[in-house]
C-alpha cells in the first residue's frame, strides 16, 4: 500500500527520469514550433522570426500534402494487413511441434535484427534489381520478362520490404498469444463438433484479438515514421512520398526549414490523433 510518505519519495525518485525525458522531448519540440512560425531559408539567407501561420497554410494547401497523407495511409494499412495475416499464419505454424523448432523460430525472428537501411539495400540490389536480382532470375527461369519492381510497383515494393521487417515482430507477439491458449478449450470445441476452421474463427481468433490490437498499435506508431526504406529505394519518387518523407524534402531538399517544421508539427498532431484513437480501441479491447 502506498502511504503518503512512500508516494512522495516515489515522486522524488522518478523526478530525474521525468526531467530528462521532458528536456529530451521538449527542447526539439519547442525549437520545431519556433521555426514553424518563421521564414527560415538558410541558402537564401532569409530569416524572419514571425510570419504567422503562413508556413502551415502553404504546407496544408500544397497538393503534395494530401497525396502524402494518402500514400502514408496506403503504406501503413497494407503493411499492417500483411503482417497481421502473415503473423497469425506463421504463429499457428510455429506453434506446431516440429523438427528443429528452436532454429526455425530464430530464423523467423532474424529479419527484425537487420537494420532498415541494410534490409532495404539488400532487397533493392539482391531481389528487385532488374539485371541481377533474384526475382529477375526467377522470372527468366520461367521464361518471363524480368519485372522492374521498384519503378513499376514502387509503393508495393516498399510495402513488401517493410512488411518483411515487421512480420517477425507480429509473429512473435502472436505466437506467445497462441501458446497461451489452453489446449482444453480447443479440445472442448472439438468435442462440441467444431471443425478446424470454426475452431480458428470462434476460439483462436477471439483469443488473439488482444494481441492483434497491441501489434496494430505498436506497429502503426513505428510505421508512421518509415524513412530509410523510402530514402534508399525510390527517394520519394513514383508516389512513395509519405508525410514523413515530405517533411524531410521540405527541410533538406528545398532548404525551407520553416515550411518543413510546420509539416513536422502537423505530422505530430496527426500522429497523436491516430494514437488517441488507437489507444481507445486497445483500452476497450483490454478491458474485457
Amino acid at each position, binding site marked *: 500500500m502506498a502511504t503518503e510518505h512512500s508516494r512522495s519519495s516515489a515522486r522524488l525518485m522518478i523526478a530525474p527520469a521525468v526531467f530528462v525525458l521532458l528536456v529530451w522531448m521538449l527542447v526539439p519540440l519547442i525549437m520545431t514550433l519556433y521555426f514553424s512560425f518563421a521564414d527560415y531559408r538558410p541558402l537564401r539567407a532569409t530569416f524572419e522570426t514571425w510570419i504567422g501561420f503562413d508556413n502551415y497554410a502553404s504546407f496544408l494547401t500544397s497538393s503534395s500534402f494530401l497525396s502524402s497523407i494518402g500514400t502514408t495511409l496506403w503504406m501503413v494499412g497494407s503493411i499492417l494487413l500483411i503482417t497481421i495475416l502473415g503473423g497469425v499464419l506463421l504463429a499457428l505454424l510455429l506453434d506446431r511441434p516440429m523438427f528443429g523448432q528452436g532454429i526455425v523460430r530464430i530464423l523467423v525472428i532474424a529479419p527484425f535484427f537487420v537494420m532498415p537501411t541494410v534490409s532495404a539495400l539488400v532487397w533493392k540490389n539482391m531481389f528487385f534489381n532488374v539485371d541481377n536480382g533474384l526475382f529477375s532470375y526467377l522470372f527468366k527461369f520461367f521464361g518471363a520478362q524480368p519485372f522492374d519492381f521498384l519503378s513499376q510497383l514502387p509503393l508495393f515494393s516498399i510495402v513488401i520490404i517493410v512488411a518483411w521487417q515487421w512480420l517477425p515482430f507480429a509473429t512473435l507477439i502472436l505466437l506467445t498469444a497462441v501458446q497461451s491458449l489452453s489446449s482444453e*478449450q480447443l479440445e*472442448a*470445441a*472439438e*468435442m462440441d*463438433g467444431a471443425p478446424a476452421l*470454426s475452431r480458428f474463427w470462434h476460439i483462436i481468433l477471439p483469443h488473439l484479438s488482444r494481441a492483434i490490437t497491441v501489434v496494430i498499435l505498436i506497429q502503426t506508431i513505428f510505421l508512421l515514421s518509415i524513412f530509410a526504406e523510402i530514402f534508399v529505394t525510390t527517394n520519394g519518387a513514383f508516389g512513395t512520398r509519405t508525410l514523413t518523407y515530405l517533411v524531410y524534402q521540405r527541410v533538406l531538399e528545398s532548404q525551407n526549414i520553416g515550411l518543413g517544421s510546420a509539416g513536422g508539427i502537423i505530422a505530430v498532431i496527426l500522429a497523436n490523433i491516430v494514437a488517441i484513437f488507437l489507444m481507445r480501441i486497445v483500452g476497450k479491447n483490454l478491458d*474485457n
Partner: protein
Amino acid sequence: MGRITLDKVQKKFGEVEVIPPLDLTIEDGEFVVFVGPSGCGKSTLLRLIAGLEDVTSGEIRIDGSPATNLPPAKRGLAMVFQSYALYPHMSVRKNIAFPMKMAGMDQAEQERRIAKAAEALNLTDYLDRRPGQLSGGQRQRVAIGRAIVREPAAFLFDEPLSNLDAALRVGMRMEISELHAKLQTTMVYVTHDQVEAMTMADKIVVLRAGHIEQVGSPLELYHSPRNTFVASFIGSPKMNLLTGDIARSHDATTIGIRPEHLDVVESEGTFVGRVGVSEHLGSDTFFHVHIPQMEEPMTVRAGGEVGLRHGDTIHLHPQADKIHRFDDRGLRVA
C-alpha cells in the same frame, strides 16, 4: 443409449506404455467412476474414449458400432473438463449454445434447450454474463450445461470438482448424482478421490499404472477388495495392513483390518498400544495407535465420546469376521 465397450485397448506414448491392453464394458445408463492414484492413466483412458487421443491398438465400440477411428465430434459424447474449458469471450448463453450452433440446430430449439438447461442448473440469472464473472461452482455448471444440451450418448467428466472448495464439492457431487438419476444417461467420471467414487458410482474401476485392479460396485470393493492395493485405496481412513506373526496366525501373508472394525476394549485386547495423534470429528474419533511390535501406527475408529488422551494405553480387538486375508502376491484369500 450409451453402451461403451473397450476391447484390448492399448495406449503408448512413444515407447512408454501408459495403458496396457485393457477390456472394459460400460453399460447403458451406468455411472462409472475411474479411480486411482495420480498418473495411473485415468485421464488418458477417458481421452481415448472421447477420441482426443488415438488408441495404439484395440477397439472402442459405442452402442455396438465401431468408434475407434471416429473423430471426437462424431462419437456423440460430451466432456466436462477439469479446467471447465469455457470460452471466455462468449456469454454463458453463447457457451451453452456453441455445440448446438456447430450442429446447425434451429434457433427456437436452441433457445428451448438453453432455457431448460439453465433452469435445471440454476443459471437463468447468469445467462448474459461472461465466464470470468462467475464463481467456480457456476462455471462448473455452465460446463455441465454445455454438455447437457447436446443430449449425448454419454457424459465424460475429468476431475470436474477438483478446483472447488470442500463444501461446494459436496454440493456439486449431489447435483451430478441427481442429474444422473434424472437423465439416466451413461456417465464416466474420473477422480482420484475415493470418497467421490464411493458416493457417486454404480460401478468403480480401480486403476493402477494403467491396469484395472478391480471393477465392482462400491460395496463390493469395500467388502471384498481383490488385493491389498484396492484394500488400502478404498475406504477412509485407510485399512490397516499387518504382516508378520499376526498375519501368519490367520494363514495369510498380510491381513487387513478397517479402522471401523477394531473395537476398543477395557483389557485383554489382541493389540495393546499407546494412543498417538487423535482426530476428533464429533461423531467419530480416529486414534492413531502405536503398537510396539509394528512399524506403522494403526488407525482405529471409536465413538465420539471415548475419553482417551495422547499417551494413554489402549486395548484393541478386531471383529473376527471382518478381517481380510491376502497371500504373498497381495491377492485376496477367500
